[in-house]
């Protein structure tokens, strides 16, 4: 990295050419400071409250009684984890979770494999239409789902009647849809990642007569795990978070957890006592896998987010 990173704010202190004294460090911090300290504290406090109060509320409400939540209590009046045991019978959350894990997990694995091979060819080989494909990858991400929902539905229904394969209402229909929708972005993430890999190892292997496929599996894949993980996680999130397609293309037994929660929420009002406490518990259960994935792989994911800017 050299001297460029020496005074960069993200470089660890040890990288500096001569170890900076505490005084020097303070001077550096002073120079790099962008906001006066009081303003800094105001901004940080305000934003933390803004961002975290609703998040805390999910947890507090999930350990509160349904009645207290319905009456607008923020702090839990009684600590009870009953909601977490009740939700499994109130709503078919278990089936939803299994479906979501199977579909989103399958999409993540296959998408990661396909995107690394596709990106490898796009980055390392020249062919007619290469730039068109790259541009297409970016464009395809931004096509609204509502535009594709109906035609995909019609296409899958037609496949059912002409080929005799039932796709609508099965997990396979969702799997195919999510896999394809995840591919452009995941591939783009891999393209940006592979561009940063040195070519020397591949060249050496190629000179030794290794086939492109062997180079991909033996050299590229082991070297690009962080990128592969990121593109897999984004594919997983797409499958886990989707409501649009899952609301149309599933039956009760193939419903994902997103639709299960949405229907649960939509049927609360107008009935007897709404079970809001349980609903918040269910919401938290749906959010946990995503938040855990994010916390574990945060460092890689943030880079991926800025790469193409798609949730």
């Amino acid at each position: 990295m050299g001297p460029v990173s020496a005074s960069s704010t993200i470089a660890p202190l040890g990288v500096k050419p001569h170890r900076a004294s505490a005084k020097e460090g303070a001077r550096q911090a002073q120079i790099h400071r962008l906001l006066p300290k009081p303003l800094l504290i105001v901004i940080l406090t305000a934003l933390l409250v803004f961002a975290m109060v609703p998040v805390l509320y999910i947890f507090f409400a999930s350990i509160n009684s349904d009645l207290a939540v319905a009456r607008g209590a923020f702090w839990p009046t009684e600590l009870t984890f009953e909601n977490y045991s009740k939700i499994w019978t109130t709503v078919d959350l278990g089936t939803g979770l299994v479906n979501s894990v199977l579909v989103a997990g399958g999409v993540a694995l296959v998408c990661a494999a396909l995107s690394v091979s596709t990106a490898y060819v796009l980055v390392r080989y020249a062919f007619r239409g290469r730039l068109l494909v790259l541009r297409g990858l970016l464009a395809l991400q931004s096509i609204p789902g509502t535009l594709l929902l109906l035609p995909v539905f019609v296409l899958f229904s037609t496949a059912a009647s002409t080929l005799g394969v039932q796709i609508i209402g099965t997990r396979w229909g969702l799997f195919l849809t999510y896999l394809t929708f995840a591919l452009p972005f995941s591939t783009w993430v891999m393209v940006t990642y592979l561009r940063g890999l040195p070519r020397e190892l591949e060249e050496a292997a190629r000179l030794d007569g290794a086939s492109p496929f062997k180079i991909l599996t033996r050299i590229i894949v082991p070297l690009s795990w962080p990128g592969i993980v990121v593109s897999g996680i984004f594919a997983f999130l797409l499958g886990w978070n989707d409501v649009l397609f899952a609301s149309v293309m599933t039956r009760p037994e193939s419903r994902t957890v997103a639709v299960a929660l949405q229907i649960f929420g939509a049927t609360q009002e107008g009935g007897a006592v709404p079970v809001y406490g349980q609903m918040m518990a269910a919401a938290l259960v749906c959010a946990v896998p995503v938040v855990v994935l994010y916390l574990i792989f945060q460092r890689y994911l943030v880079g991926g987010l800025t790469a193409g800017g798609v949730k």
Partner: protein
Amino acid sequence: MVTTPEARTRADALAAASAASADATPARSTARRDGHPAPSSPSRLNGRPRGARKTGERDRPLWMLAPGGILMVIVILVPLVLGLVISLMDLDQYTLRQWVSAPFIGISNYVEALTKSSLIQSIGISVGYSVLVTLVCLPIGVAAALATQNRFRGRGLVRSLFLVPYVLPTFVVGTVWRTMLQPDGVGNAMLANFGIDGGLWLNGPQSYWALVFVQIWASWPFIYLLVLSGLQSVDAEVHEASALDGAGWWTKLRYVILPYLKGPITLALIISFLHSVNNFTLPFVLFGIPAPADVNVLPVLTYITGFQNFRFGLSAAMAVVSLILIAIPLFIYLRAVKLDTGEDGGSRVRK
């Protein structure tokens, strides 16, 4: 420095040779001779990735593009065309089964969508709320990035927490806020502490502001993220220089730092706008179906027309109109992203 294709190829070969083991060298020269005839003209090399030059046409593993390519053609491109075709048909639940033989009615769906449906209204709501959300998110995101750019105790934790609203699945965000914004919910209870009567948030005119607020809550961290990565590319010398000049924090921010952020901010604005315009899940989960008239955004209208009223042709026409709507920001976005960074790989979004 002028580099001819030949010279660059030689340099590459040298680099490769230094990495390859000694006994592989003869193999290299043969591979190069039969694998890759000398380029006929320098222009052929333009726009090619660096690694491509040393491999022959013969062993390019283009078949690896096939699985992903076939999927994208069948599940994205074909439906895209199919959507255009359906938008010209009178397709409803009765004709869906034999959709191929549904009556072809030209642009009637478009005429109906523009004159008899609430499409124009929905476009207004969608664009208005997306612009509003994006404009409010901008200062929040910039402030958050400026505040967390400097080292302080607990900065890592703060950065992680800032991203939580963005990371939560949209259907969870919708469900939670739907609960909080109930007439007797915690939202109104908190407002009552300040002596404000909140009223209805999920119905009637205030639902629009509920949507704007929740969307801001969930999407500002994205702008924060892009601005933060932009801030990190500001050289240390810039900070040193403005300190030497004795610039105050506002002067420095306004005239030194902000110009650096123009690119990331532009990009963040475009992507944020596209996210809001295309967001179906949040209004759908927050308000349910049918949506209140004030939050009948474009994706929800398209969905209801198609899958509640079963006017498939009309719905497809609306979807095509929405594609035209996002085409302009999308075009700018595509121009802003550098496609082929060639030699300096690794860097991503540029402006």
